[in-house]
């Protein structure tokens, strides 16, 4: 896979906090339409990696390229505007605002009307309509006018995904989308993850192995800030080193 094909391309990413190295020589390509799952034990640095990609953390070395263009100097907001979108492991929502408005505001930012103060009627209504349609597609159609804090946790997780989709991402970084969701509600999330737009390059951090194997066409295993190995689901399932890492057969 040459980096020319990839939508998102990472080379030599390195980050440490004093003596603690959280990311070491990470190389990764995300082609359009990718379905990659990033797995590894807790503390392996998966969320840190996502933070490095989104710009929340600044790497000590290495490059991130979007469509071949380096984005290392861009602020997180600017990267989002170029189509690099993430969801959060812990719900990051506007709790005192309606479900529909959470999505509509994202649409408005995407459409660049977030600065409008006086003339906005028809365009804002269009944002609301699009938001409602998106919610319906994700199974949240009836919840549009409810406040987010009234929503059950599983639906809030779905809303995280809805907002990310509203931004029409080119690259989508999902941070444990089903984390903390009770079994009954997790099903809805799993179904939605299968229906994500085909052209979007998706990297998903997950611990739920059923979900991982159902979703991913490629799996990347990360341990202590390094990429241990990568491959197709069946290759990873049969990899001894991966089993050791998860089951700890050989003490580190």
């Amino acid at each position, binding site marked *: 896979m040459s980096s020319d094909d990839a939508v998102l391309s990472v080379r030599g990413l390195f980050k440490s906090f004093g003596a603690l190295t959280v990311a070491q020589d990470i190389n990764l390509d995300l082609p359009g339409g990718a379905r990659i799952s990033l797995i590894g034990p807790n503390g392996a640095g998966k969320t840190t990696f996502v933070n490095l990609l*989104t710009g929340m953390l600044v790497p000590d070395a290495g490059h991130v390229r979007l469509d071949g263009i380096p984005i290392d100097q861009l602020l*997180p*907001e*600017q990267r*989002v*505007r170029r189509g690099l*979108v*993430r969801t*959060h492991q812990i719900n*990051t*929502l*506007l*709790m*005192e*605002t309606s479900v529909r*408005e959470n999505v509509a*505001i*994202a649409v*408005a*930012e*995407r459409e660049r*009307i*977030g*600065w*409008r*103060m*006086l003339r*906005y009627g028809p365009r*804002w209504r269009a*944002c609301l309509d699009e938001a409602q349609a998106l919610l319906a597609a994700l199974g949240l159609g009836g919840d549009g*006018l409810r406040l987010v804090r009234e929503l059950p946790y599983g639906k809030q997780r779905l809303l995280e995904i809805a*907002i990310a989709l*509203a*931004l029409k991402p080119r690259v989508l970084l999902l941070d444990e989308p089903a984390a903390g969701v009770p079994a009954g509600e997790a099903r809805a999330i799993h179904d939605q993850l299968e229906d994500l737009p085909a052209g979007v390059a998706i990297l998903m951090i997950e611990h739920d192995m059923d979900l991982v194997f159902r979703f991913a066409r490629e799996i990347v295993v990360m341990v202590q800030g390094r990429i241990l190995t990568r491959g197709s689901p069946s290759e990873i399932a049969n990899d001894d080193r991966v089993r050791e890492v998860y089951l700890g057969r050989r003490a580190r």
Partner: protein
Amino acid sequence: MTLRYGGWGHLLPWAAALAFYFFGSDLLSLGTNALIMVLFALSLDLVLGYAGIITMGHAAFFGFGAYVAGVFSIHFSNDPIAGLLLATAAAAVLGLITGALILHTRGVTLMMLTIAIGALVLEVANHLRAITGGDDGLQGIRIAPLLGLFRFDLWGHTAYLYTLAVLFVWFLLAWRIMRSPFGRSLDGIRQNVRRMRAIGTPVWWRLVAVYSLGAAMAGTAGALSAQTTRSVGLTALELLTSGTVLMVLILGGTRRLYGSFAGAVVYVVVQDLAAQADPFRWMFVIGALLMAVVLFLENGLMGLVDLGAARIRALSGSRREQR
């Protein structure tokens, strides 16, 4: 801003304000002060209530607007509207510059910076006493007739209606703006700035914009104060004034269309009554009031109104859709 009581809710405060004009002839100057405080508190609601910028230095813009309007009338032109517009624009610029300087910080640091800037502006005014009159205040402000027609009479008739009109215009603007995508994004920034960054909102720019807007509005309030009372003093720039407007806003209730009205009216009335007795008595009353509001009235007076309305509705057994 939420409007919970339908069309009549809108009319009531404005009708009351107009009625006051006709029936409150002796107290018009008090009424004008209340209207100015409404505008001042409303300006803070944009910055603090919506965008969540905790500032203890908002008086800087009020005072700056007041001095600009006053100095303009003394040295350049008596025309009230020209002075008003200039003061508003000047305050906006001050808000833009100071906001751009400090709004990358947040929380306690930001609050301290607003205090430092407020103190700095006060010192500048004190220092430039040739222009501002220093401790003695600005003297000799004269106001030409409004639109060349309406003289500012001694009983404050013109002043009251002039202030009411200006308040109305700003009120409409503020209402429109806070319901816009811009206003909603600021509300979002207050609730969860991380979420807003994650959808690509240029947070700093939005905050600077609303800070400048709030500054402009406060500048208008200051200019009105200078023009209607024909005086400006250093108190307009003091920490005390910043604290007072903050209290008025919280008293009335943030993010409520008419919260500022409620808070301002109560404050002006209490202050007038208490100050007549002894200046420090009013400090006691205001201080106790403030503490009571924080402890018991989380949503301010509008919260009380809500409670009352809910009781009435429960008693009458009717249901109304809220939103």
